[in-house]
């Protein structure tokens, strides 16, 4: 193969491979990336059923109920605008508690409740998931 042709082939191959993979991934991203919702967004935009979602807000006071099997629980997430009941099976993170920030990963059910597969809680005084910080701030401004 001539040098010029070789270079051209390689460049085309590289552009094709990277571009193709990226296009494919971007099209799939539309369906599969987990979007972030606050309870108020659900009221506003409707239920995103059948897709991975992150639900963020505060755990409402006196809302944590532990079920008989010892590993399941129910609680309510609120952002001051609306509330969403959440069901979760598993070990809650150490800093998961009432009146504290939480991000629940999972999906909505047709009745408007949320089934969480994973919970993220505020880590320490310095750390708050930026989404929660952002949403809380937004909600506060809206209420004023």
């Amino acid at each position, binding site marked *: 193969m001539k*040098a010029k042709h070789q270079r051209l082939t390689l460049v085309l191959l590289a552009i094709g491979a990277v571009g193709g993979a990226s296009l494919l991934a971007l099209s799939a991203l539309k369906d599969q*990336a987990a979007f972030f919702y606050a309870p108020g967004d659900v009221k506003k935009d409707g239920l995103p059923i059948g897709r991975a979602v992150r639900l963020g807000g505060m755990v409402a006071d006196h809302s944590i109920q532990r079920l008989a099997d010892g590993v399941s629980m129910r609680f309510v997430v609120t952002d001051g605008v609306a509330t969403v009941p959440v069901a979760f099976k598993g070990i809650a993170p150490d800093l998961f508690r009432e009146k504290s920030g939480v991000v629940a990963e999972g999906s909505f059910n047709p009745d408007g409740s949320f089934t969480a597969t994973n919970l993220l809680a505020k880590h320490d005084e310095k750390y708050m998931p930026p989404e929660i910080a952002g949403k809380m701030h937004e909600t506060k401004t809206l209420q004023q």
Partner: protein
Amino acid sequence: MIAEAGLAALWFAAALALLQLVLAGLGVWRSTPVRAEATGSARSDEETTLTADIIASVRPVAVVQGVLALFAMLLLITVFVRSDMSVLLVAENSHSDKPMLYKIAGAWGNHEGSMLLWVTILGVAGAAVAILERSLAKPTLIATLGAQAAIALGFYAFLLFSSNPFARIDPAPADGNGLNPLLQDPGLAFHPPTLYIGYVGISIAFSFAVGAMITRDVGPAFARAMRPWVLGAWIFLTLGITAGSYWAYYELGWGGWWFWDPVENASLMPWLAATALLHSVSVLATRDGLRAWTLMLAVVAFSMSMIGTFLVRSGILTSVHAFAVDPTRGSFILALLAIYIGGALLLFALRVGTVKQGNTFDAVSREGALIVNNLLLSVILALVLLFTLYPIVAAGFGTQLSIGKPFFDKFIGPIALALGVVMAVGPMVRWRRDDPGVVLGRMTVPVAMTGFALVALVALGGGIAWLPLFGLALAIGLAVASVLPLWGRNWRRTPLFTYGMVVAHLGIAVSLAGMACDAAFTQETLVAVRVGEPYRAGPFTVTLDGIKPVVGPNWSALEARLSARRGADGAVFYLRPQSRFFANPVTVTSESAIATRWDGQLYTVLGEPDGTGRWQLRLWWKPFVTLIWFGGALVALGGALSLLGRLRRERRVRVREAYA
């Protein structure tokens, strides 16, 4: 006084970096042939001597700069060890009741300290280049040290103007805030420095590329000079990633070993780029091909390590590493990033035209296989970068989303498997040209092994998802293929770097097998148990014997006493997972307890009491999960053997040339 001395050392080091840059610039400019012609071909002796003096002075300046940076780092460690609370950084991140190991490691368990560690390693590595590098042409070496100084200057500016680690606080608090308990682990002493050495090693490879571009000296000699640094950086990145993965696995208590967390990706991206560079630099050194591509990869690898630093340090992404961050500093690093990457790409664009075409080769050849390797690595790198940054871009457009593990697994997994196939075939193909039929013939055994494993797994296992299934089958074929290059050779005369390649490729196969086994065969049990009630976790029976309070140096904990036995008549062994309470700062962490057997790990986590006398327990049986990190260690060992082999050969060649 110690803190002030540290700050002074930093300022001096910064000034020396500036001097190093200016001297190197002058030296390169004065010794370019173009200028020699412009000033008349007969240069005066005086001027030649001056040029030689300038060039000779760059090396010592680089050495002193490195020593000063190291001195500053040692002083920072000293104030941490002495718990000097009048230093703001110590007050914010340390506490006098911390064990000594974490006082020392705490020096880099925060933003300012970790940046100082970065620049210290950079300085020391620059000094090492100045002292050790003997084979490269003088002007190229000087240009390399100049580029190194330019990188260092940006980080000195960052430290001195926006992240001074030695700032005082007045009045000094009685005691400090303490270190994040998640970081109070031996992993902290090891993981960040290894990764930083890797990042910095890549910056040296990049400086070599810049040096070679400035002096238009891109060829096998440059590739041979650059290769040990790429290899060294790659070894440390491999170790850092492997250690970080195991640390996250046992510390976070989620039972996973890779979360596609942005910061994990930040360490993976430079590794991918460095892996590609490592293979392309071999083509350049051995066959004098892929010149421009190798330069480009050096630029990309450095950009990735800078983006990695940016992602970690700016706190722009949600991450388990989201402690020790400050968004306002992100803009400073972003500016540095733009200058470095932009400058490097500009230089590349200006000089790529003068890089001569290297040797050509056939599609079926070792070079061809290495190009496919580079291509696939680049595609993976592009996807990881895209997925990691996409949430930031989307946030800019007002959409908040996250891209999780399932998505990465789905897209990266198949490409990684394809890469595994190329990796099995590549070493069996000859340089320049080979016959496809003959190559296929050499692959008979591995292909047969993979096919056999596939059939056996489908027949016996059943219900394994296709990705782990193919992963495991490929791992078996790859393990066989990776040792094939030793087949029929005289083992004593086989060079050390060939063994290096074999061990590294075998390591990938072992690691792949571990990942596939973990995905396919893990058994998870989540229960609330009473004391004395036995539960099954895979082949084990686990019983909660009791819960006891225990006290550590700076924490108290509830500790579960678990007894476990394999089958009905296995020997009983004990596990003690804890729920730890730290007072400084107030935090609760789960400490998992792991029992390692030859064929896997039993992983236990203690949850909360449910109020009726039961305790939550999470138990995993993870067959062969340990292979993941064992494989990672093998890969690093392979890199080390390769490095040793290359250095030995280079030395032999130099000695031979000296006597010729």
